[in-house]
Each structure stands twice: as structure tokens, then as C-alpha cells.
């Protein structure tokens, strides 16, 4: 008998995703077994899954094994640990927001949390994907879950519309992405990100034109996920229509995960052709900042305004990508952490103010919010100031880092565009603060903030302030050691 040696499979590097998917299945089973009512158990289980994923990620921080596992499909590095933690944290905060919201709208169904966990597992895997096939698979896992979540409020037409719109356009962009993978494979003969780089760099290994066409199509796919102009059209409608906690999760999680993969693909995979890509990325970055900031001014709905703001922020993160140096990468990572905290916080406040359904997302409902709930008004003001990039908040440090990186690379014009876009953006953030603090409330009645979502808001607010005052807490010990090299 010849002993059969099992293939050498180490599952620890994907333990975070296993924890998330496992928890999702348990939540589904629980829902089938004891449906409805028992939301508390589902929430608890979800949080346990997220904490488990975070713990498994931390355990990977000191990984000494090979840099990729599972046949070169999944990368094991500090970069993926950083993003997995960020995603788990964002998902946990979104869960805290969801519990109260769903109870209030009478939509508490178990599959919500299962979907959220599946989406989180997709995002998590995306940040560790070392092969374009895995990138595509995890993109699909997260997107399919989010399509359903966006349309979760079945009785509300806007939500249905959001789900449908997101699905149709998302499927479209997936096709682009897949075609991009095919072209990249045609050019280099591989879908492994690192091998693509060596094929392109080796010269003569493949057609550069084909590779560039592939890169452009991949960029379309990523551009859609991170809501960069001109692939942003879906964002305002979907963000507005989706249930607010879903919007919060989508805005934070998808963008973080999408950028994680984008960074890995551009830094590791496309390094040899980056000279050719930079002008395109430059233009997308500038357009995204301008369009996002300018269109946000005209919005009268707070969710739409935040949607445009989130578009603009994609442009700011891209500034760090365009810079294409270590500082830019660190800046983009810091920016994403800061962005996740502040956008989650902002949408979290919106979820509390727009009670019962979605009828109070017009800016009019925020008039005199200070009188109705000083705490919520102060928190929203903090998040808005951070989104505007005013010190001493996380948003300011994030902007300094990416701008500085672009300056070091000599992208002056982009920095000037970025700064001007920030000034324009400051205008509409400040307008909301004016409305909250300087006008009398239209309707009376205090707004009470229940404990569970308040805990989520407190975490987001603490992160926004802490990262602003002591950015080194995150930069030196974490981001500094999580950078990926070309």
C-alpha cells in the first residue's frame, strides 16, 4: 500500500472567513429552527462570529509560514490582517446599528444577519486575495449578499429599487471585471497577481497592450465597487434607498475591501505598467473628487449627500494610490480606516434620527437637531467635521498623509484639485451643522438614542478623535508593518 499523503493544506490563513461563513450558517439554521422574535440570539451569534474572525486575523499577524497558501490563491500578510480587522470592526458596528433599526421598522428577520456575515466574509477574503479568480469570487460573494440587503425593506419601494439597481449595474460591472481577468490571462498566461507582475516585468512575456486593456477593465470593476467617477451613478440611489444600517455597512465595508484589492492589484500586479496607468488613475481621482464634492452641494437629502461625499472620498483615497509610494499606500490605508469610522458614524446618526422607516432623511428633519438631541447633534457634527478634514479629527490626518504622498511623487496639480475639492466639500458639511445648530426645530420632541446603537456610535466617535489626535497609534505599529511591496 502506498500511503496517500494528503495535500498540504493550511486552513489557518482563511480562518477569519471560515468563522464568518460558519456564523452565517448558524444564524440561518437558528432562523429556520426558531424563526422570528429571537433577534437577540442572532445578533449575539453574529457578533461572536465577527469577534472570532478578528481574533483569527490577529493570530495571523505573526504568521511565519509561506506568503501565500492554497496554491497561491490567498495571501497571508499584515496587509490582509489590517483590512480584515477593519472590515470585522465595521461589520460589528453595522450590526449594532441594525438591531434597533430593524426592530423599529418591523423587518427583523434572521437572514439579514446571515447575509451581513456572508458579505463580510466576501470582503474579508477580498482583502487577502492573491489571485484574480479569488478577487472575482469574493467580489461576487459580497455583492450578491449586498444586493439582497439593499432591497431588504420589501415594503418600501425605494429599497426595492435600490436592490434592483444595484444588482443590474453590479452584474454589468462583474462582467467587465471578468473580461478584464480573461484579457490579463491572455496577456500573461496567469491569473496570479504576483506572477502577472513578473510576466509583465520580464519583458516579451506577453502583450503589453493586451495587459493594459485588461487592467482598464479590471479598473472598471473596481471603480464600480469603490464608487469612483464615472462608475458612481448607482451610488446615490442605492445609498438613499437601502435601509440606513445597510448603507452604513456598504459605504464602509465595500469601499474598504474594494480598495484593499485595488491596492494589491496595482501595487503588486501592475507594478511594471504603472507608468501607463497613472494618467488614467490621476484623471479618475480628480474627477471623482470634483464630481462628488460639487454634486453633494445640491442635495437636500442627507443620505444622498453622504453618498456623494463617499464618492468624493474614493477620489481622495485614489490620490494615495496615484502617488504610488510607501507613504501613499500607508496614507490610503489610514484614510480607509478613518473613512470607515466617520462614514459609519454619520450613517449611524442618520439611522437614529430617521426613525420608523425612511421618512426623515430630508435635511429639513435636521433643523434644530441640537435642541432635540444634543448628543446626536454633537456626534454628527464630529463626523461631518472629520469628513470635511478639519483638525483634530481623523479625516484631517488622512488627507495630510495622502496629499503629502502625492506631493512627494510630484503630483502637484492633483493635490491642488484635492484641496479645492475639500474646500467645496467643507461647504456642504458645514451647511448641515448650520441646520442642526443654528435653526429652530421644525418638529418638537426629544430623540432618544437607545443603548445598543449608541455603543456603535461611541466606538466610531472614539476612533475618529483618537486617530486624529494620535495617528501614530495606528500608523507606526500597524500600518507601518502591513505595507505590501511591489
Amino acid at each position, binding site marked *: 500500500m502506498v500511503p496517500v499523503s494528503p495535500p498540504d493544506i493550511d486552513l489557518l490563513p482563511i480562518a477569519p472567513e471560515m468563522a464568518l461563513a460558519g456564523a452565517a450558517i448558524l444564524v440561518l439554521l437558528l432562523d429556520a429552527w426558531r424563526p422570528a422574535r429571537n433577534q437577540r440570539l442572532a445578533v449575539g451569534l453574529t457578533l461572536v462570529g465577527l469577534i472570532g474572525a478578528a481574533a483569527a486575523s490577529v493570530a495571523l499577524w505573526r504568521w511565519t509560514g509561506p506568503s501565500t497558501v492554497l496554491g497561491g490563491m490567498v495571501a497571508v500578510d499584515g496587509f490582509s490582517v489590517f483590512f480584515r480587522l477593519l472590515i470585522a470592526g465595521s461589520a460589528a458596528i453595522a450590526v449594532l446599528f441594525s438591531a434597533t433599526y430593524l426592530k423599529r421598522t418591523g423587518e427583523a428577520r434572521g437572514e439579514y444577519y446571515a447575509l451581513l456575515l456572508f458579505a463580510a466574509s466576501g470582503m474579508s477574503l477580498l482583502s487577502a486575495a492573491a489571485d484574480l479568480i479569488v478577487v472575482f469570487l469574493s467580489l461576487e460573494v459580497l455583492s450578491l449578499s449586498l444586493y439582497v440587503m439593499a432591497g431588504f425593506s420589501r415594503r418600501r419601494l425605494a429599497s426595492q429599487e435600490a436592490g434592483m439597481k444595484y444588482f443590474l449595474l453590479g452584474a454589468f460591472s462583474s462582467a467587465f471585471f471578468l473580461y478584464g481577468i480573461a484579457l490579463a490571462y491572455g496577456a500573461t498566461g496567469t491569473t496570479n497577481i504576483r506572477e502577472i507582475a513578473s510576466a509583465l516585468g520580464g519583458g516579451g512575456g506577453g502583450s503589453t497592450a493586451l495587459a493594459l486593456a485588461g487592467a482598464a477593465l479590471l479598473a472598471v470593476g473596481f471603480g464600480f465597487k469603490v464608487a469612483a467617477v464615472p462608475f458612481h451613478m448607482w451610488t446615490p440611489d442605492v445609498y438613499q434607498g437601502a435601509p440606513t444600517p445597510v448603507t452604513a455597512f456598504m459605504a464602509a465595508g465595500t469601499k474598504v475591501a474594494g480598495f484593499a484589492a485595488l491596492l494589491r492589484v496595482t501595487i503588486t500586479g501592475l507594478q511594471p505598467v504603472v507608468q501607463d496607468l497613472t494618467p488614467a488613475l490621476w484623471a479618475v481621482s480628480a474627477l471623482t473628487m470634483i464630481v462628488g464634492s460639487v454634486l453633494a452641494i445640491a442635495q437636500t437629502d442627507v443620505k444622498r449627500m453622504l453618498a456623494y461625499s463617499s464618492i468624493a472620498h474614493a477620489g481622495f483615497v485614489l490620490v494615495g494610490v496615484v502617488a504610488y509610494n510607501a*507613504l501613499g499606500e*500607508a496614507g490610503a490605508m489610514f484614510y480607509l480606516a478613518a473613512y470607515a469610522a466617520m462614514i459609519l458614524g454619520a450613517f449611524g446618526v442618520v439611522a437614529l434620527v430617521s426613525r420608523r422607516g425612511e421618512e426623515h432623511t430630508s435635511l429639513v428633519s435636521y433643523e434644530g437637531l*441640537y435642541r432635540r438631541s*444634543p448628543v446626536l447633534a454633537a456626534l454628527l457634527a464630529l463626523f461631518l*467635521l472629520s469628513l470635511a478634514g*478639519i*483638525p*483634530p479629527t481623523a479625516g*484631517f*490626518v488622512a488627507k*495630510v*498623509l495622502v*496629499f*503629502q504622498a502625492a*506631493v*512627494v511623487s510630484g503630483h502637484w496639480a492633483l*493635490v*491642488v484639485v484635492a*484641496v*479645492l475639492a*475639500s*474646500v467645496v466639500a*467643507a*461647504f456642504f458639511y*458645514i*451647511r448641515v451643522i*448650520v441646520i442642526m*445648530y*443654528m*435653526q429652530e426645530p421644525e418638529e418638537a420632541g426629544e430623540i432618544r438614542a437607545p443603548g445598543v446603537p449608541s455603543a456603535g456610535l461611541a466606538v466610531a466617535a472614539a476612533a475618529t478623535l483618537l486617530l486624529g489626535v494620535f*495617528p*501614530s497609534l495606528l*500608523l*507606526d505599529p500597524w500600518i*507601518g508593518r502591513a505595507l505590501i511591496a511591489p
Partner: protein
Amino acid sequence: MPTTFSWLTVIVFVPLAGAVVLFVAGLLSRRARDSVWRWGALTVSAAAFVISLAMLTAFETGRPGFQLVERASWVGLLNFRYTVGVDGISLFLVLLTTFLMPLAILASWKVERQVPAYMASMLVLETAMLGAFVALDLLLFFVFFEGLLFPMYLIIGAWGGERRVYAAVKFFLFTMAGSALLFVAILFLYFQAAAQLGFGTFDLVQLAQLDWSGEFEVTARWLFLAFFLAFAVKVPLFPLHTWLPDAHVEAPTAGSVILAGILLKVGAYGLIRFNLALFPEASLYFRTFVMVLAVIGIVYGAAVALIQVDVKRLVAYSSVSHLGFVVLGTFAGTVQGMSGGVLQMVNHGLSTGALFLLVGMLYERTHTRDLRRLGGLGRQTPVLAGFFLVVALSSLALPGLNGFVGEFLILAGTFVTNAGFAAVAAVGVILSAIYLLWAYQRMMHGSLPEEQAQHPDLSIREYVILVPVVVAIVWIGLFPKPFLDRIEPDAERHARIVEMEPAGVRAAGGE
């Protein structure tokens, strides 16, 4: 004195820490929350003043360069450091801030709406202003400079008069637009340092050593303009002053006091600390341009003040005029001009701050600031009228009071190098005598309009507010030596930069 004690850090952060403590105390005593915040804010700001007086003893007179310097790394990746220090330029601005703040809080005693948020804004504002005056790292300065914006915006917008929202937004957008360019310029300096020194830095002293000769001469001029624009909005220099009258008129009394007394100085201070120190050649190149703007501001501000009927607006325009003097002096290129400019910043803080306080007290009694509807108050409130007269005389530079020392030094210092500018600026002195005395006459003399009932004279609280200011006004007027002794060494260092014939000696920051 031991330099191991972190004087500046303590002074800067006492107000902020106080706000945090008061927040907790306010939560614990719900019923007395407003008075906890009032008394607490007063105590905290008074404590900051006492500590800053103690700091004065640690400051070594006659030694140019930065003192009481503290350094710590903040963001290692960017070489962004927490560096603070004072020199003769900033020393008295720190003291002015800590001195005016308790008075402004006392003047806000009658604010009834949202007292905790109001007092918290005041304390945060104090930390930001103090930080801006002592920061020696450009990015750190920018953090404080931007940090000023929001609390002041809230104070104007939430506790101001009828058109407060318009005024607040205008204030915000003007300043924000200015600081955006400042930000790009700061990033560029970092880049330039990386190219020339081999490491990127935001440190003021190191950046002052950059070489801008040859091909970089034009770059330095652009950078000068970026810095200049940001600070000229704050000063405000003509023609960027239009936000100021609106902001002043709509702001609550204490807001106006701080805005005129301290905030405008951040702009004038920035011109000296950054424009002059970082870009000597460009400063010399733009010297005449800046002085022309300053002189226009002096005359224009005074002329417009002349025709105002709202007394608060009148004082606001007088600020435009007086700050013109400050800028004129600092760019005159003589030690007298520079010393006078720095001292005049303090003087203007005292006298204009006091004018706004008095106007606020008048308004609380008469509920109007319209000069056409006021009159005869001298008979009803003689003490208030007396204080008003003293402060107005100080503002119009009567010999023996503080304004004279500053304006005389400025005009003398300017006359040496640019007699023409000094002559035109002197018109501003005459005009200021006219509009202030005329306003005094219309308010205090004559007969009392029918609708004005009996008004009480000063209360004890109001005495407590006004007496210290007047003491300071007289003290600087009669015995300015202790102030000038500390200002002069650094004034000389900076004045040399814009001397008409460049001595070729680069004023590289002290230490």
C-alpha cells in the same frame, strides 16, 4: 528657571482639559449645570492666565530666539513633530489671550441659551488660539489654525444676532478658502525640505534655513502669496476684510471681543512668523505691495468707520484701520516699526476688546446700537461713559495711553524708510480721533431720547471686567519698557528681513 517644566503645553491645554472636566462635572450636577459651567470656565481661564504670568518669569529677557521650547514626535512617518516655543513676538500675544479670555467669559454671564456648549466652545477656542501662537511646527500650527475656525463659527452662528447664519458662513468660507492654499504651501515646504535638507520636515526653524535663491526665487514668491492670502483674510487686510463687519455685528459680545482682540492677531502674527521668517527674499520683493494694502486699509477702514451709525460696525471698521497699522509697522523694515507693530497687536486687543465690551454693556441697557437713537447716556451712566472715553482715547492713540506708544513707534519706524506711507497713515490717526470722539459725543452727550428709560450704571461684575483692561491700558501707556524689552530682540531679528538694503544676513530662526 528650569526649562524642564512644560510651561507652554500646560498653558495651551489647561482650557481644553478644563472643558473635559467641566463636561463630567456638568453631568454630575444636572440642576446647577449652567452655573457649574459658568464658574468653571471662569476658573479655568483664570488659571491659564495665572500660569502664563508664571511663565513670564521663566522667559529670559533680552535673548533673541525661541525659548521654553518643547519637542516631541507626533507622527513619525511624516516627521510631524509637536514643537512649541515662544519668542518676543508671541510672548505677549499668549498673555493677551489668557488675559482677555476670563474677561470675555465674565462678559458672557448673561448668556442663557445652551450655556455648556457656549462655554465649551470658548475654552476650546482658547486652546486653539494659544496653540497657534506657540506652535513651531507648520503642520501643528495649521491644526490649531483650523481648530480656531469651528468654535468661533459656532459662537457667531449659534449665539449671534439676527443675521448670524449669514455672518457665520461668510466667516467660515473666507477663512477656509485662505487656509486651503496655506495647506498646499505647507506641503510644498515639506517637499522642498526633503529635496534640500535630505529629510522632509515641518519644523519652522529648519524650514527657515531653506535656500530660495536662483531658480527657486519665483517658487518662494508663490509660496509667500499662498501664506499671505491665508493670513491677510484673518488680519483682515483690504480688500479681504468684508467678512469682518458682518461677523462682528452678529457675534455675541464675547465673540466680538475674542475675534477682534485675539483672532485677528493670529493673521498678523502669521505674517511675521511665517511670511517674513520663511521667505526673506519674497518678503522684500512684496514689501511695498503689502505696505500699500496696509495703508489703504488704514484710510479706508477709518473713512468707512466715520459714516457708520451702528456703533458695533464702527468699531469693526476701526479694527480694519488699526490692523493696517500693525501690518505697516511689521513690514517697515525697522526695529521701531516691528516692535510697534507687535506692541500694537496687544494694544489693539486691549482697547478694541474693551470697546466691544462697553458696546455690549450699552446694548444690554438700551437694546440698540444705533447712534441716531442714542444720546445723553453720560448723565445716566457716568461711570460707563467715563470708561468709554478712556478706552476710546486709548484707541485713538492719546499720549499717555497704550495706543500712542504703539502707533508712534509704527509711524516713526515707517517714516525712516517710507515717509510717504507714514504721512498717509497719519491721516488714519486723525480720522480715528474724529469717528471715536464723534461717536462718544452722540452716545453720551445731548439729550436722552424719549423711549430710553432709566438705565443703571455699572454693576460689580462689569467693574471687574473693565478695571483690569484700563489698568493695562494705562500701564503700557506710561511704562512700556518691560514690554518693549522683551519684544525688541526678536523684533530686530525679523525687522532685518525687510530692511531696504538687504544686509545679506539671513535671519535663520533662533535656537
